[in-house]
């Protein structure tokens, strides 16, 4: 896999990124728009495709792939494109999953843990605050750990869960990328709106090449929307990928 090396001027490295479209994806166009607005070359990968077309990164967008039947992400995980994505990730390829994409990555075994129904058992759609928690993961490395980033969520099954042993590994390897917090970046029980284990909003794998998060940074990356905190996450991600490679 070829990775374009970071230059000393941030944001000029252009990546070829594949955004996977499953039946039921509904945030794919938002993701494509956001990535293209950052000058990346984006191609759409259909769930039945078996060729990643030489992309340097794969993004699994939000939505309700296969109607969320059985469990969120459970059926998407066995779609033809995912076999390629899993192979790509296992070779060190970069993969980002947002919302349903995160659920698919957990079901695929590319990320540890799983997403359960929200504790309230209701679908929650609102802006929440995120505290960057990993200084070694590309997507959060450049962010201010004392700042609460405002990013929208929209999910019914975003309650992150992993067993105690897995949680200990996540902490030991600095794999927790974001945690739900209050406006002052304090990680509190009150800010944990969906009941996630340890307020976890997103994690990465031990290799730091696969990232998953429930909140939607692509919905907060255009100045016209009045919030560009999400763009900061993408900037951190793309600025650090080549360094990690």
């Amino acid at each position: 896999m070829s990775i374009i090396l970071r230059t000393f001027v941030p944001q000029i490295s252009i990546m070829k990124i594949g955004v996977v479209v499953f039946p039921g994806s509904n945030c794919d166009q938002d993701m494509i728009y956001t990535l293209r607005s950052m000058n990346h070359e984006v191609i759409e990968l259909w769930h039945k495709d078996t060729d990643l077309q030489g992309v340097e990164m794969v993004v699994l967008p939000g939505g309700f792939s296969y109607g969320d039947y059985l469990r969120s992400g459970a059926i998407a995980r066995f779609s033809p494109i995912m076999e390629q994505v899993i192979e790509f990730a296992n070779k060190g390829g970069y993969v980002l999953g947002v919302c349903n994409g995160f659920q698919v990555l957990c079901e695929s075994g590319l990320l540890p843990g799983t997403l359960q129904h929200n504790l309230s058992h209701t679908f929650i759609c609102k802006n929440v605050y995120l505290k960057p928690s990993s200084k070694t993961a590309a997507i959060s490395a450049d962010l201010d750990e004392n700042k609460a980033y405002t990013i929208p969520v929209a999910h019914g099954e975003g309650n992150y869960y992993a067993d105690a042993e897995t949680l200990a590994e996540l902490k030991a390897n600095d794999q927790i990328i974001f945690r739900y917090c209050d406006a002052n970046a304090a990680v509190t029980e009150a800010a944990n709106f969906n009941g996630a284990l340890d307020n976890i909003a997103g994690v990465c794998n031990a290799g730091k090449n696969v990232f998953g998060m429930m909140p939607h940074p692509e919905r907060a990356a255009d100045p016209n929307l009045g919030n560009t905190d999400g763009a900061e996450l993408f900037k951190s991600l793309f600025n650090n990928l080549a360094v990690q490679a």
Partner: protein
Amino acid sequence: MKFRAEINVMPHKALLDPQGKAVSSSMKNIGLAEITGVRIGKHIHLEVEADDEASAKAKVDEACKKLLINPITENYEFEVMAL
């Protein structure tokens, strides 16, 4: 031979089951406060073609492990009967 499997999938006992909890707490609203501890899982029926019962069970078990359940949050049991 064709077999039919009936699979019960339940959330692990250690996990909170918000759906079951909500139903549990609504029992008093229908005058059945005696009912508590509701936990909600899934029941799956399927048919499987196999040479014998042991082979049918192995295929059902594989389906459970690969797709039908998530071992992190769910456990399962099943019965297989010849059709």
